[in-house]
């Protein structure tokens, strides 16, 4: 007997996998550079969701945030916290990943605008054929 929550969580996981497929397809096939950047940002977001999914856990009734709500925790509270809270390592990795991803994405947008200024087009097939 499969748990209904497991079923719904698997649906989420497979939907994110489908998103990854569509985003990678967009990166490889669509010719416009800005469209490639949009697809790349979607692909990055899917990767972040995977990382968070690894840290998720099943707890009754629902897992807690990895942040203590008291400043003088007792031993019982710490045991309860460790048994219920989600993994704090993937959020710490994704947190910096999102901000650095934005900075790198903005640098790519700068490069593509400069490409348009110099070549007059953003179609990757035309840019490849040009010289100089």
């Amino acid at each position, binding site marked *: 007997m499969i748990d209904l929550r497991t079923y719904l969580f698997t*649906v*989420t996981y497979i939907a994110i996998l489908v*998103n990854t497929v569509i985003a990678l397809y967009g990166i490889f096939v669509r*010719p416009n550079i800005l469209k490639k950047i*949009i697809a790349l940002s979607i692909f990055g977001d899917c990767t972040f969701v995977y990382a968070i999914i690894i840290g998720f856990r099943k707890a009754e009734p629902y897992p807690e945030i*990895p942040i203590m709500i008291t400043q003088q925790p007792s031993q019982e509270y710490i045991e309860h916290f*460790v048994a219920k809270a989600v*993994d704090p390592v993937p959020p710490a990795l994704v947190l910096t990943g999102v*901000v650095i991803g934005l900075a790198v994405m903005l640098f790519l947008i700068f*490069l593509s605008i400069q490409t348009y200024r110099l070549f007059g087009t953003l179609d990757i097939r035309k840019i490849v054929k040009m010289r100089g």
Partner: protein
Amino acid sequence: MSDLYSLTPYVVLAVSALASTIAVYLAVTEKDLIKAVLYSAIQSTFYALIFYLLVVPDIVLVYIPVAVGLLPAILIIAVKKTEKYEDVGGVPRSTSIIVLLSVTVFTLIAGYLLVVSHAITFDVFPSPDARLLAKWFLATTLWWNRLFSSMSPEAVTAIVWDYRGLDTYFETSVMYLAIIGALAIARYLDIPRKEYREDVMGMSIIGKMSAKIIVPMIIIVAISIALHGHLTPGGGFQGGVTGAVTVSLLIFIFSVYFATRFFKINIAILLRIIGLAGIILSATIVAIIGFLIGQPAYIFQNQPKIIAQIGLPYEIGGNLISGTLLLFNTSEFLAVFMGFAILFLLLSIPEENVLEVIKGEVE
């Protein structure tokens, strides 16, 4: 009834994931690039909901300003400066089918490896247990024994700036290099000196008035998120990107000439350097103190360790400050905020001024 109550978050999770799939499909297949950007913003909204339901409030706070606010705004500026429509004629059908098949195979293999690496079966998919490392971090983040703890109730900020501080240091340097690259591309450009005129520039009076009310509030919320980063969800990164939203609001609703009254590029660069210097200082402050009083200490040390018995105080007058975490969050707030302010100001330079400069440079 209680069954239904515990099931609700999972139902919302699955529904928002399926809705985000529709938004991704529309974003990738749309030919009008402005619409594609808006569809990707809708996808980001659903992803923010997914992050919220996966109980990671830190990521929600950083993801909403980045993926719903800043990235679509920048992409719309870029689309307005370049081509508005995408020409997809001439892509052979066989090519797209081959690419789709290989991408699907790659994703399935990657997804299978992910499940295997989680060391669980589909029978108990969100595993009820956490990894040993996660349990160690959760148990020691605020503990009676200072020698093993970082004395902060916020486990994520503790990992970002204490347990794994060196990782974050080098990731900050990646952001530093990306902004340096953008500055190098725009090295001869400057925002033209022009007076801001209320009646001809920007949006209508309604937008301007509401922006005047909202912008100070956003800045206060950003500072609050950054300074309480060691106590509540948030920190330097989240506060910085939230603050950067104000620059984009000023540019979009008023104009770039109005925004330069508050954010000048050179001053922004100076403040960003101060923020980066603050990060380096916070990383080495315990080592400097140890050097001065002649005791062993590490870089990125926060609380005393067994063989390095010095550290910063974790509370001042009963207020928890968690040693270096407060200093790190303040400096990172300044660095991220000003870094994105620089990028926004550079992107909003009018195109005719840029073309003049580039023409002179090519000839």
